[in-house]
């Protein structure tokens, strides 16, 4: 179990190697990685966050998922700062006894990170800068889990 909030990049392979469950307790491991995607003129994404709150918010999401699906292990890394096109923004890795639990838990964690983790994204493009708006669907996504 680990939740990391950092400016530095991370090595997904190293994180997966540290994920618990390789002893035969896990039947399923899922990793999700979010990358800076380049729509039209975008060349960078700037992530602002609320340092006093971020880790606690991520840990709360992680604990809720771990409890609900009986996960073996969870690792979450979320970066902040200015990230270039194609760079890694964040990752979630989960291990579980069974496939369905792993999928649902990873999906749940992503939905909550999206709308309940105190990060804000600003796009830097040839047109200037613009804050990314939350989508109405993001809240609908959360409703899937209640």
């Amino acid at each position, binding site marked *: 179990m680990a939740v990391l909030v950092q400016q530095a990049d991370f090595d997904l392979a190293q994180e997966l190697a540290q994920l618990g469950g390789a002893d035969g307790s896990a039947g399923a491991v899922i990793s999700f990685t979010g990358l800076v995607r380049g729509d039209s003129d975008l060349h960078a994404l700037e992530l602002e966050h609320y340092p006093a709150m971020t880790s606690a918010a991520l840990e709360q999401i992680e604990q809720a998922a771990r409890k609900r699906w009986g996960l073996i292990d969870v690792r979450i890394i979320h970066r902040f700062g200015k990230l270039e096109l194609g760079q890694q923004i964040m990752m979630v890795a989960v291990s579980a006894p069974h496939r369905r639990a792993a999928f649902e838990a990873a999906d749940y964690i992503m939905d909550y990170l999206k709308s309940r983790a105190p990060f804000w994204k600003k796009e830097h493009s040839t047109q200037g800068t613009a804050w*990314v708006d939350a989508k109405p669907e993001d809240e609908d996504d959360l409703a899937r889990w209640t």
Partner: protein
Amino acid sequence: MNLNVVYFAWLRERIGEPSEMVETNAATVADLIKELRTREERYDLAFSDLDAVRVAVDQTLTDFDAPLDNAREVAFFPPMTGG
């Protein structure tokens, strides 16, 4: 009471400060917002559409009805866009 009020994303930009100490007797978040809006136009503008504003009291997401007794930090920000 002395509150540390913090702002993020476009709220920070509109208000022009990442944080400030506010001396207030506001009972709730809504009261605090009312007070701030009377201060200067940049505050009034920043809080003009409350549907676009979220609040955390002492690093816990809450709503505008939340009481401020014993609160030390109030954060205002737009809906989060993590992940």
